[in-house]
């Protein structure tokens, strides 16, 4: 009976679980125990967690149950276990950021987004694996055991929010915060068959979050449903007196907009850049998803992509590396041997970018954004592009090596995502089909600044029409049975 309840709870969405706790049909402790059971079964092999804060999570679940019994609620996430990329600071706790260098230093502050999630009633179950200092797209971290993709263990989970993608897809937690500088929320969401949301630059506070590239970094949720992402974004978005880059404008109630019809909405089909070098399986899934939207009442409109997008795509690494290297300068001088080989090398170029080139790149962002808004959003309301133009790569394809083939694959991974960070626009990644080898593939819906409400509405309708979000990852079911029966294999 307890096993059946745990199984049922694990497969609920965040909103479904929160609503059951709210109405007293299950307790926060029961929901937490279901997550813990899944973690105990899978994580010794999946390696999504780098730290579990079980005692504090259980104490909080009991407290949340007690106040609910007294007729009170903390908020829309009351009793929902989450865990986050290990770069969200909580005062007194170590967030290693996937590194050795920060593995012993307790945080001096608590991230604003964690405070907001606490106030909304969520339970923080621990820290999740990530690429060292969030610098890398395929999810590998030489300092950590490899996090496994629950669809196919021979394929990467993508990154840099690798643990977030794995933990949410494998039902260990209901949602997770990742960070997205060039695709680090949307790519692991796509690779693990879940939803990833990149908010408009400045919509969510970054106070108390490890900086990678100040002008490009965004905080975003990874979830199993679009509704879940909408609920979390409503909680974490908005003003922060401690972060003056966070927007001061009111945050809409995204969930209340989800059921509106799609009549009159124009979805852009990219002509140029985003339709180049597409894998045929990805192309097929994207075409099928457009058909779903057409049948749901949206108009499909060709959208010519301006040439400035290619320039923006090439400038993104210049900005990211210049800003990232500046952050790491003192550590690179004093502790170069504590960086992994791959990330250590990634940081090096940023030290030789001229200040003039960097400022010119920042100046170009305004031009590129204006050009994109004029060319695309004067004709459509949202643009639909693939997240990954290729199927999720295998471990072998991503093993670090020099040479043009490897570089081409790394560049392809973030080709469609990084340019959206450069433009500062919001994007929502949603699973839209499967490759011939059974791996999920996703589209991203890109919108005007602060148009998250529309993107959620489109993504939610797609999930309601297709039910793809209910699909259990291919390897996950098998692993759950095997690991329960045989115990934990030693790797």
């Amino acid at each position: 009976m307890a096993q059946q309840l745990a199984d049922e709870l694990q497969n609920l969405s965040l909103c479904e679980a929160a609503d059951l706790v709210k109405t007293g049909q299950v307790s926060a402790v029961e929901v937490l125990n279901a997550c813990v059971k899944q973690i105990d079964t899978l994580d010794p092999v999946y390696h999504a967690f780098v730290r579990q804060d079980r005692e504090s999570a259980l104490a909080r679940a009991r407290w949340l149950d007690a106040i609910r019994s007294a007729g009170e609620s903390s908020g829309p996430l009351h009793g929902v276990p989450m865990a986050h990329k290990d770069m969200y600071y909580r005062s007194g706790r170590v967030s290693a950021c996937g590194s050795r260098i920060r593995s012993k230093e307790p945080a001096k502050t608590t991230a604003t987004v964690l405070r907001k999630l606490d106030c909304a009633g969520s339970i923080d179950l621990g820290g999740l694996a990530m690429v060292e200092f969030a610098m890398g797209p395929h999810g590998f971290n030489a300092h950590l055991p490899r996090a496994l993709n629950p669809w196919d263990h021979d394929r990467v989970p993508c990154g840099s929010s690798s643990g977030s993608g794995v933990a949410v897809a494998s039902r260990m937690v209901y949602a997770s915060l990742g960070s997205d500088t060039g695709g680090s929320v949307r790519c692991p969401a796509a690779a693990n068959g879940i939803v990833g949301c990149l908010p408009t630059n400045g919509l969510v506070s970054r106070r108390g979050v490890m900086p990678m590239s100040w002008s490009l970094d965004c905080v975003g949720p990874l979830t199993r449903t679009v509704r879940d992402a909408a609920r979390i974004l409503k909680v974490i978005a908005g003003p922060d007196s401690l972060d003056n880059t966070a927007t001061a404008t009111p945050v809409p109630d995204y969930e209340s907009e989800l059921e509106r019809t799609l009549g009159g909405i124009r979805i852009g089909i990219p002509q140029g850049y985003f339709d180049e070098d597409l894998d045929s399986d990805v192309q097929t899934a994207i075409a099928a998803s457009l058909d779903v939207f057409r049948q749901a009442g949206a108009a499909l409109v060709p959208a010519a992509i301006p040439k400035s997008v290619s320039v923006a795509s090439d400038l993104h690494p210049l900005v990211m590396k210049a800003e990232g290297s500046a952050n790491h300068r003192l550590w690179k001088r004093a502790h170069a041997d504590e960086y992994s080989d791959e990330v250590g090398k990634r940081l090096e170029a940023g030290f030789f970018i001229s200040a003039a080139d960097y400022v010119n790149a920042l100046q170009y962002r305004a031009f590129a954004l204006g050009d994109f808004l004029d060319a695309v959003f004067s004709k459509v309301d949202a643009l639909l592009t693939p997240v990954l133009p290729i199927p999720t790569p295998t471990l072998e394809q991503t093993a670090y090596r020099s040479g043009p083939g490897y570089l081409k694959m790394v560049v392809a991974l973030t080709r469609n995502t990084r340019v959206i960070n450069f433009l500062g626009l919001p994007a929502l990644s949603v699973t839209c089909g499967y490759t011939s080898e059974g791996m999920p593939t996703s589209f991203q819906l890109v919108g005007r600044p602060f148009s998250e409400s529309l993107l959620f509405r489109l993504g939610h309708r797609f999930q309601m029409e297709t039910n793809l979000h209910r699909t259990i990852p291919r390897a996950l079911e098998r692993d759950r049975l095997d690991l329960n029966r045989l115990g934990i294999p030693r790797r």
Partner: protein
Amino acid sequence: MPISPEVLKAINNEAQQIPIREERWPELAVELNQLRAAAEAALAVHDFDRDPAEFFALLHSRRA
């Protein structure tokens, strides 16, 4: 004129002082030349009066 490994080494010795392995200099020169080419391409529309902060202002002024 392309950036050479020797120029990068000299800048590093004089200013940055980052420990970088010898075999990395040619690779770094290739990467830096790609980034320089990107920066040069952006200059085609360079506007003397454009403030980098305009980007963030534009996000708000053109909001949905």
